[in-house]
């Protein structure tokens, strides 16, 4: 019978182009006319091959059970698909294909009795040993765990609002998509060939190893090697086996006695470290109330430490998972992203430490200089600049008509606070730097060099640590600016609100709170009088307050942006996809980003040479698309988008203008990137211990592979002798 459309689809490996001897084409038969060629075995008989494939002879000496291959490729066994260079095409199974190498082009000629047209798809095999593979959708570098909010219970403020509106937009689009779905007229049921694609991808990934196995074991099908050996050969062989035997014994002694103790010590060390880390983590993640921020949410240093600890906790698990890879077929590509992630974090930590060493040594050598520089910076920017700006504001700045009394009052107030601050913490600090007296412990002064030294020292734990510390120090040393900002914003906001309500009174209206609208209302004379006078007062006092508020708001914004810069540096140090970039340059096939087809021009197949006339064939090349750089840096884009959406939103601008408090961005949004490399829930100590134990056993298992139960076959004794001798 002829398939409904008579289309035959053949997947053919590109490395099999020159086969001039008659052979058998072996592979998977996905559906009736949809075949996937794994190998071409030369000089064997098709029926014989069929028989042996059925009985799994080929996988006898394979280190791992072929069941993985079979289940991933979606078939219980391979088939003989056809014959290459057939002697008599008439004598073969009609559903078989017949492949002839074509002299003209780089793809063979495929003919099949049933096929009216042929799709010949040339694929080149990815090398599983080199961890190459192809996949339909791009490889996920980030660890996707469902719902980051399991880790951070609740977020309040405009962030949740933004997310809400994002969600709403998403739902809106979803509705549109649903509507769009109603518009398709005929719903086609995908045929078996359509559904086969996922299987085919796996088959491509497996084809290299399978072909190796087939070619290695194809000798078994040939004439048996002769049984009896000559004496000299026996001697040589026995000597060789003797030497091997001794070596093997030594190896066994090592692996059986020495190695486990070392491993035992190592594992216990790891677990100990893990326990300490656990303690720290509990400390860092402790919240007073579920809603409250934990320590790691407030301080960048704590966050940094937490990330490191989490990584330390995660590495053993990752490593265990990677070791499992070794103990199975190389073609199983589920753990490749883990591999990349693991080494990426290792590399990053290494880089971090290297940079940190340089930085730290520099800082420690020039501790005093750095300290004085820092102190100078602090003084100039957080004290002097502020003082000068306030002084500038008290005299009418830029022709602004400020009210003298109020300006003087506010200016004196803030200046007094600044003086207090400076005297307490910075002025003393100068002479303390000159003469290291050990008194007045309440001042920051003598501590600054110590702090600097400490920071420098900490940077041996990686350059990210001092950066985090500096960021924390910045927020600690600019508390006064923050408080000024809060105070002036509060005053300004109050004034605005009062002015608004008084303006309603001025217009003879009032704001109805119940109905939330403006009602008309007639006041008494005294109300009118007091209201109007107050209105005038506040109206004339407004500019003064505004300039002070703006002053501190600008300062606050500058500090926030500084911290943003620090955070960006941190995220670069912590999560730059370094390893992935290297891979992308070194071997793009290890980072599959999808597949791509290329239609090749086929010159019209002339049946001059070919015995059988070739059906219309279209030669397509299946290629793997490497992961795009945008996909690699996707999370950075997301983070930038989040920050932009938070700080450049009209709502924030409104908050600035009306003097309401501008909420800082929730660290969770900022660090969604940070955690995208770590699992949502870290493994407990017990799990880790168990995992390590298991991992201790597995290598033994791999060293002595249990041979699969041998079927009773003529080749059986031979196999035993080989393993026995």
């Amino acid at each position, binding site marked *: 019978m002829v398939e409904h459309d008579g289309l035959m689809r053949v997947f053919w490996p590109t490395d099999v182009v020159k086969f001039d001897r008659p052979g058998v084409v072996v592979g998977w038969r996905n559906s009736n006319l949809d075949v996937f060629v794994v190998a071409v075995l030369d000089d064997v008989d098709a029926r014989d091959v069929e028989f042996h494939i059925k009985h799994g002879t080929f996988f006898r000496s394979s280190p791992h059970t072929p069941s993985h291959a079979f289940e991933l490729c979606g078939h219980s066994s391979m088939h003989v698909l056809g014959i290459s260079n057939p002697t008599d095409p008439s004598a073969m199974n009609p559903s078989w294909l017949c492949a002839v190498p074509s002299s003209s082009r780089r793809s063979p000629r495929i003919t099949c009795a049933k096929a009216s047209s042929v799709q010949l798809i040339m694929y080149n095999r990815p090398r599983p040993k080199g961890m190459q593979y192809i996949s339909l959708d791009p490889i996920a570098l980030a660890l996707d765990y469902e719902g980051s909010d399991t880790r951070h219970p609740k977020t309040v403020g405009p962030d949740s609002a933004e997310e809400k509106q994002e969600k709403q937009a998403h739902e809106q689009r979803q509705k549109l998509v649903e509507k769009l779905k109603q518009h398709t007229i005929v719903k086609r049921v995908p045929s078996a060939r359509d559904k086969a694609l996922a299987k085919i991808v796996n088959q491509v990934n497996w084809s290299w190893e399978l072909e190796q196995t087939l070619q290695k074991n194809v000798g078994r099908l040939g004439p048996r090697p002769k049984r009896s050996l000559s004496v000299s050969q026996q001697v040589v062989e026995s000597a060789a086996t003797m030497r091997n035997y001794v070596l093997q014994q030594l190896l066994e002694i090592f692996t059986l006695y020495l190695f486990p103790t070392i491993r035992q010590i190592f594992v216990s060390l790891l677990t100990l470290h893990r326990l300490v880390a656990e303690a720290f983590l509990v400390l860092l993640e402790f919240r007073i109330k579920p809603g409250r921020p934990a320590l790691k949410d407030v301080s960048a240093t704590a966050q940094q430490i937490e990330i490191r600890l989490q990584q330390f906790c995660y590495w053993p698990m990752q490593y265990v998972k990677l070791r499992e890879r070794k103990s199975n077929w190389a073609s199983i590509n589920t753990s490749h992203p883990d591999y990349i992630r693991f080494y990426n974090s290792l590399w990053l930590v290494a880089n971090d430490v290297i940079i940190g060493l340089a930085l730290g040594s520099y800082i420690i050598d020039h501790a005093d200089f750095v300290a004085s520089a820092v102190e100078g910076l602090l003084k100039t920017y957080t004290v002097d600049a502020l003082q000068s700006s306030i002084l500038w504001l008290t005299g009418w700045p830029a022709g602004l*008509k400020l009210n003298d009394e109020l300006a003087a009052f506010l200016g004196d107030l803030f200046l007094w606070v600044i003086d207090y601050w400076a005297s307490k913490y910075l002025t003393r600090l100068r002479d303390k730097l000159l003469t290291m007296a050990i008194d007045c412990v309440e001042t920051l002064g003598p501590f600054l060099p110590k702090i600097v030294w400490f920071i420098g020292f900490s940077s041996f734990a990686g350059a990210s640590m001092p950066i985090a510390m500096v960021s924390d120090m910045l927020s600690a040393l600019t508390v006064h600016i923050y408080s000024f900002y809060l105070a002036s914003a509060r005053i300004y906001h109050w004034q605005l609100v009062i002015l608004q309500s008084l303006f309603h*009174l001025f*217009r003879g209206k009032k704001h109805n709170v119940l109905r939330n609208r403006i009602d008309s209302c007639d006041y*008494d*004379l005294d109300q009118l*009088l007091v*209201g109007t*006078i107050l209105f005038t007062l506040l109206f004339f006092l407004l500019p003064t307050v505004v300039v002070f508020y703006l002053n501190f708001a600008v300062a606050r914004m500058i500090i926030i942006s500084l911290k943003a810069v620090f955070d960006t540096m941190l995220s670069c140090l912590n999560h730059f996809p370094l390893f992935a970039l290297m891979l992308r340059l070194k071997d793009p096939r290890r980072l599959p980003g999808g597949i791509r087809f290329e239609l090749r021009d086929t010159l019209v197949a002339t049946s001059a040479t070919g015995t059988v006339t070739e059906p219309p064939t279209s030669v397509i090349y299946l290629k793997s698309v490497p992961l795009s750089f945008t996909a690699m840096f996707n999370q950075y884009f997301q983070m930038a988008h989040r920050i932009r959406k938070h700080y450049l939103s009209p709502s924030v601008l409104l908050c600035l203008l009306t003097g309401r408090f501008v909420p800082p961005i929730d660290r969770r949004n900022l660090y969604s990137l940070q955690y995208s490399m770590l699992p949502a829930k870290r493994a407990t100590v017990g799990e880790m211990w168990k995992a390590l134990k298991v991992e201790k056993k597995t290598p033994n298992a791999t060293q002595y592979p249990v041979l699969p139960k041998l079927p009773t076959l003529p080749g059986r004794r031979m196999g035993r002798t080989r393993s026995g001798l």
Partner: protein
Amino acid sequence: MPSHTDDDESETPFPTLDLHVSSRLASGLLSPDDAFPPPHRAPYAGDSASELGRPRLRRLHSEQGGSRRRKRSWKKLMWVKQSYPDNYTDQATFLGDLQRNPRLKPYDFWPLVADSTVILQHVCSVIIFVVCFAFIFQDRVSPVSIVSWSSGATVAGWFVWEYWTIPPFNPGEINHLHERLGTLKSSALIYSTLLGLSPILKSLTRSTSSDSIWAMSFWLLVINIFFFDYSGGVGAKFPASLSTNAALMASTVLASRLPSTTQVFSLTLFSIEVFGLFPVFRRHVRHQSWQLNVALTILLVLGAGLGVGLVVRQREDGGWNWTSGIVGMVISVLLAGVGTGGCSWWLIGLQKYKNEIRGPWDPARPIIMNRQRWDDR
């Protein structure tokens, strides 16, 4: 988009005639069966109309009105299927109830002048306030004297007002007592507030330049004059808030230019009396007797004139220049007369240009018993 689409409705080809339906309506009204047009369309002679030309329509109608034979005349109804085309225009009824200047009542001269005295009074009181400020600003009059005089006048006026409002035999003595106590309380509140706030006001606008202050107060006073509720009778409890507030703010701004606290205090208090209380008193005067109203008007006009005269020209020794004061009075009287008379005459003259088209298409003004809901609209 609507859920109902009448596509599935099988329309009988229109028009059809259903003879089986007969009118069951008792009265001589048009029956719903008229919704069916006659089987054929009689050829007809349409006719035109020039733009808005009702006389031409009439003429045409008279020309060939009889040339048309119809079995049923055209009706200005839409539920009837008539044997006329849609763009048929019936001269008899087209624009039938178009009316021009429906409620045009011509004004008379003297009532108009009499009504305009209210505006005159208010303007004059504003002028007097400004003059007093000028006096205080130039240190020609002690603010205390002004505020004491005005307070005295206010108290007197209050007694008079009491006398008018309370009928001689009054059953409810008690609540009147309450009112008085309330008045006293609020006045005490105002007094103390002013005392407290005037030091702050004193230096409020020092940094602002004088010109902007003058301009601001000028515009505020203009707002006061234009938004003042002149029509309000005795019943209206208080002058409209906006104008009063504008005036008060103007006085506050002006007061903030004054150097000393007493001046600020007295000017603000004076402004309250002028803008807050005096209008109420004026209303009662107008309500009470016509002569009193006229007398008050003349008094105000003269006072304003005198003040302006005294302000604009002063003797070099700083004393009072009475001659210019007299001149000012005369000029003000003349101005007042010419202004009121001229404006009224002009208004009457404008009446003949009025051309107001009214018809059924205008939104009707609902007549509602308790009008207060939509007076403030």
